[in-house]
């Protein structure tokens, strides 16, 4: 109940699929999704293994609530060792794919080894087959999706796939499902490509049950009512997550031109108001909003690029609507690279979904390349003749396509910002942590965010903690360690349930507990759930330490530690990471060099 109690293990080297029972001890200790797969990863591979080698495991995993009537029950995660970071990678996605393989009867799909030739997995309930992918190797995600549905005469297949970027090892290549949702970060798509696995096409007719249906329906109904009445949720429904851009602009935490500035003069051209503006010729960027499986928020956007825009005026194949701007894409393709052309941003977003790349990391890499170009370190001779100046919309869209297809300078951009900056002798221009590029928040303005970025187990990430309220209230490093640690544990728990993090706009631990307790065997308390979160966090830390990361990697670039914010509410401030980090290790029950103490490990059963 809740869980399907079944996993599919796919040995790509031998071309064999086997069904195994789910390890229920692990399910009870780690819950599901992020936590459960991290345990399988830790027990199933050597953390020192090459992320692009056959020893890396690639795990697709759902939570016990995935596929139920709980709101936002469409979530699944991809867990592996990340090629971008060399650390544990847990990339979360929505859409319909995760629920579908849960309905097929599986909690996890584990891919091991490497196929000798390109293959895809076709999975319909009990029937699992690895089939040749020669005809789609070299195709985009969107072409692959169409080909598979046609090949199997089944328009109801749900598909997760990589594009050429993943095939060719772009370090931040992602896995796209349902055309415009993605397990986006840390290069999980490159792992899939390294295994010669092109796609997973799944259909499920089995259904998901719960322990106490009547109580479950009451709990989910109450939780949905809380979500319905919540104003933060209403913002996401009506405006999408890009509503954040106006708040960050006013606050002065909006990273601009590779973190040279914290406010961007072009915000009014790319914010939600701009997305909803109707032009004289009737064109409007925003078409409608859209939900993932089970979701009553519907933060997703569907957009239209202006057909007269230079990017698509001669490309009819892009005149259709597709996934529109959410905050991180708007930030990474807007202020971070200085571009204020909403159609260029939207089109570049399409390309991310079509070719399978993380917009945050692509934008971060392009921003660093622009800085190198403006410094004269690289020139037109390096960049295929394209002027990589901040603000050049054509640079954004041309390079997005080049990188997606792994052509020309796109092959350099495909290294990711850290490796590219090192290649050109300017490692200080990489703006991220542990090899992963920052999200749209400048931690000179949001101090707790800085601590979260520095300590997130998957590299710079804005989603693994939540110190928003504290950061808005107090722009010093004081009092950030405890809320950072507590929210990290809570978020690790939420990431393991199968529902979406955005429910935390309205739900506290009580709401999660009520739904989990009605769905899953056993007795679930708030304490038990939060302890699971803490256990997951420490397990991920253990994986990273075994992989060779140390406390020295819990740091931020000099630009944030030494160069004061030039404006905004935190004008003149740097990120006070040192002050926060020591306190954080103590609060965590870790040693001074960032290792979980024996006492902490014993308490958590690690």
């Amino acid at each position: 109940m809740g869980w399907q109690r079944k996993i599919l293990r796919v040995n790509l080297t031998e071309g064999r699929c086997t069904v195994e029972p789910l390890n229920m001890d692990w399910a009870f200790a780690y819950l599901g999704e992020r936590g459960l797969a991290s345990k399988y990863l830790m027990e199933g591979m050597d953390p020192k293994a090459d992320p692009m080698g056959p020893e890396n495991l690639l795990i697709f995993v759902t939570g016990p609530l995935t596929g139920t009537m709980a709101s936002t029950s469409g979530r699944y995660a991809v867990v592996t060792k990340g090629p971008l970071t060399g650390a544990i990678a847990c990339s979360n996605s929505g859409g319909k794919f995760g629920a579908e393989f849960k309905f097929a009867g599986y909690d996890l799909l584990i891919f091991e080894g490497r196929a000798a030739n390109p293959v895809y997995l076709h999975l319909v309930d009990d029937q699992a087959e690895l089939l040749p992918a020669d005809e789609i190797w070299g195709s985009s995600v969107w072409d692959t999706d169409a080909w598979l549905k046609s090949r199997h005469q089944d328009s109801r297949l749900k598909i997760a796939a990589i594009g050429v970027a993943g095939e060719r090892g772009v370090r931040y290549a992602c896995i796209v499902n349902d055309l415009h949702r993605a397990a986006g970060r840390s290069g999980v798509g490159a792992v899939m490509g390294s295994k010669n696995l092109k796609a997973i096409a799944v259909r499920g007719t089995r259904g998901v049950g719960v322990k106490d249906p009547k109580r479950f329906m009451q709990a989910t109904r109450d939780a949905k009512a809380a979500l319905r009445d919540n104003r933060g949720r209403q913002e996401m429904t009506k405006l999408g997550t890009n509503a954040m851009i106006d708040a960050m602009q006013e606050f002065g935490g909006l990273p601009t031109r590779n973190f040279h500035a914290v406010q961007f003069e072009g915000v009014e051209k790319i914010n939600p108001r701009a997305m909803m503006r109707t032009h004289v010729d009737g064109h409007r960027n925003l078409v409608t909003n859209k939900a993932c499986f089970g979701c009553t928020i519907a933060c997703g956007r569907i957009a239209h690029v202006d057909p007269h825009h230079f990017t698509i005026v001669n490309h009819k194949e892009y005149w259709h609507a597709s996934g529109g701007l959410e905050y991180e894409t708007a930030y990474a393709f807007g202020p971070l690279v200085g571009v204020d052309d909403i159609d260029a941003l939207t089109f570049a977003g399409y390309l991310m979904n079509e070719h399978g790349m993380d917009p945050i990391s692509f934008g971060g890499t392009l921003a660093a390349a622009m800085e190198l170009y403006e410094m004269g370190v690289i020139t037109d001779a390096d960049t295929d003749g394209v002027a990589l100046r901040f603000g050049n919309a054509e640079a954004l869209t041309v390079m997005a396509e080049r990188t997606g297809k792994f052509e020309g300078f796109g092959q350099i951009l495909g290294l990711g910002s850290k490796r590219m900056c090192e290649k050109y002798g300017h490692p200080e221009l990489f703006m991220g942590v542990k090899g992963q590029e920052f999200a749209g928040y400048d931690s000179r303005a949001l101090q707790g965010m800085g601590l979260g970025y520095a300590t997130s187990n998957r590299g710079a990430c804005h989603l693994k903690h939540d110190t928003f309220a504290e950061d808005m209230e107090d722009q010093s490093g004081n009092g950030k360690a405890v809320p950072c640690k507590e929210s990290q544990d809570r978020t690790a728990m939420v990431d393991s349930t199968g529902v979406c993090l955005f429910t935390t706009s309205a739900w506290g631990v009580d709401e999660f507990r009520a739904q989990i307790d009605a769905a899953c065997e056993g007795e679930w308390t708030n304490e038990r759930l939060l302890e699971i979160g803490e256990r997951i966090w420490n397990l991920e830390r253990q994986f990273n330490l075994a992989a060779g990361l140390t406390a020295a990697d819990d740091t931020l670039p000099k630009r944030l530690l030494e160069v004061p914010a030039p404006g905004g509410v935190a004008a003149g401030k740097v990120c006070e990471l040192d002050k926060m980090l020591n306190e954080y290790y103590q609060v965590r029950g870790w040693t001074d060099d960032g290792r979980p103490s024996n006492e902490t490990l014993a308490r958590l059963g690690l």
Partner: protein
Amino acid sequence: MEKSLVIDPAKCTSCLQCELACSFEHEGVFNPARSRIWVFELEHGARAIPFTCTQCAEAWCMRACPVEAITVNHTTGAKEVDADLCVGCKVCAIACPFGAINYDVERHVVAKCDLCGGDPQCAAACPTGAITWVDAGQTGYERMRAWAVGTDAALSH
């Protein structure tokens, strides 16, 4: 009062809570594959349209059934399948022009929307009002209202 489901695709976000609610109500599990209402996505997800049985007054399925397993519920107006009488011949599925009645491979009988006996769960579950449950004689009322507003120059701006 006889009531009817009204579907407004413009409000549909493709969340599929309706499919979950339907399968849960009828089968006791969450299983969209066994829902009697389905959402169809077009244009890269730009449009989503829920669709189900329209409860025809002179129903093809009812007329086609050789064992009279499909009858009218006179309270709700729904055409309901009696699973005990149904032999699973599927002629009704062939006859229905809308594809709204389908064979249930687990029960070996056909299944269709029965309006949940007068309290349709899809409408109850829909978070956006894309599916509503209204007077069967006025299903176009709100759509007409939208156009009426458009005719008044003072109101439409």
